[in-house]
């Protein structure tokens, strides 16, 4: 079946604008994760969903970041009033359950550039 998909693949925006990034997990996967990768850095965990619930939002970098998930499907990561430091590749992953050893399957990422 299809893997995790993300859209858009690339997004260029001006500082101060809002952006919305989308993630479609693998069908049937209940857990969904968002990560950020800045240039030359490792992946930084942002937030996870179990179903449509996000119990821990402490990984989000600031209150300009928010995320939602509809049921056990699509998730959107919204960044308001974008800043240049938000430029990064945003990766989404999903797993069957939120299990300790469960494999996370990654999407191709959205490359965000804030001018």
């Amino acid at each position, binding site marked *: 079946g299809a893997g995790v998909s993300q859209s858009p693949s690339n997004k260029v925006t001006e500082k101060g604008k809002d952006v919305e990034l989308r993630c479609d997990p693998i069908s049937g996967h209940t857990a969904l994760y968002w990560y950020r990768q800045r240039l030359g*850095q*490792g*992946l930084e*965990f942002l*937030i996870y969903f179990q179903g449509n619930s996000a*119990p821990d939002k402490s*990984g989000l970098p600031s209150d300009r970041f928010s995320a939602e998930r509809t049921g056990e499907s699509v998730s959107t990561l919204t960044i308001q009033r974008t800043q240049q430091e938000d430029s990064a590749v945003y990766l989404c992953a999903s797993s069957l359950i939120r299990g*300790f050893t469960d494999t*996370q399957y990654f*999407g191709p990422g959205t490359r965000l550039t804030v001018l």
Partner: protein
Amino acid sequence: AQRVTQPEKLLSVFKGAPVELKCNYSYSGSPELFWYVQYSRQRLQLLLRHISRESIKGFTADLNKGETSFHLKKPFAQEEDSAMYYCALRVYSGGGADGLTFGKGTHLIIQP
């Protein structure tokens, strides 16, 4: 908080030579350790995990709790092994597991 360290940003070896990509972690409990790989123009994918104790594409990794290390090894490198390799750690919190903590990655280049 947990941390993963990959000391080498770039590692270049010749085809047929042994490869070792280093990974050290800091966490007081018992984490789950993973190696992820990203080939050119492909998405990040799981290579192996310590709990499985398996060999994938000739790679192995042993968790050394005393040295808090999870180094990735392959006895004879192949050109197709050229990729970015990320070591990752996952901890268990009440109610389930949280997101992965990644190292910064090592770019492995296998020269012909």
